[in-house]
């Protein structure tokens, strides 16, 4: 069975790679390469896979999952400029893809027993979302 917990954070980023020229950056990322950055209201969906405990009827206590997401993701990411304030985005381009992978890496060590991390879905805008399954 899968269970999903949703959370939101607002942050700014700039999609620009130090390994590429200005022209290449603009060709690949378009307006997202604006050097001053821009922001989004991100939505994260953390999905856990497991079987309900025969006594509690729950895969995992969602209060714990909520607190875990707050501590590992929302606290460090919310109202930050990701490139300047959140590692590893000082050297990794904070595309939606890479942010989803980083959220996975931060949560996965805590979600191995009593419900295993199944996927991280990150919605950057109503038009663009990504889903990472490790």
């Amino acid at each position, binding site marked *: 069975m899968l269970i999903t917990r949703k959370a939101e954070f607002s942050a700014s980023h700039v999609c620009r790679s130090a390994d590429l020229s200005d022209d290449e950056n603009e060709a*690949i990322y378009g307006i997202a390469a604006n050097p001053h950055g821009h922001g989004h209201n991100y939505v994260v969906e953390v999905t856990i896979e497991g079987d309900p405990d025969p006594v509690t009827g729950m895969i995992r206590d969602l209060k714990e999952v909520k607190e875990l997401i707050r501590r590992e993701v929302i606290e460090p990411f919310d109202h930050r400029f990701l490139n300047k304030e959140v590692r590893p985005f000082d050297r990794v381009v904070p595309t939606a893809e890479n942010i989803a992978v980083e959220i996975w890496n931060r949560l996965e060590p805590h979600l191995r027993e009593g419900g295993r991390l199944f996927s991280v879905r990150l919605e950057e805008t109503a038009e*663009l*979302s*990504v889903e990472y399954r490790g």
Partner: protein
Amino acid sequence: MILVNRRYRFSASHRLHVDALDEAANDEIFGKCNNPFGHGHNYELEVTVHGEIDPVTGRAVQLDRLDELVGRSVIDRYDHRYLNEELPEFAQTVPTTENLGKEIVRRLRAAWPSGFPHLERISIFETPRNIFLIGPTE
């Protein structure tokens, strides 16, 4: 491997009617969707691709290329059209969202460049409550 979902919108009208069935059967099966003058929806099309994240760009798919591909092969074709009357693929085939989805997958596959990340599925939101997922080989 990562999945990337990109969402597009188009507005179109359709009428659910099968000529081979009589009036009573059409009414029984399609209800108000069988209204003789057709009706419209704001369709949302989500195209899901799967690929690997490029280590330099951090992207799994070039979004401008995907937008161009979907725009040219799907959105430009269906936006602000009456599917039954204006699109030859629905002259004989009832434009249910199932059939529309199969046609969209066929068009995307025909236009898909080699070496582009793989098409995983499409999702069509006919309304916020009617959602159709169609695999890449349907």
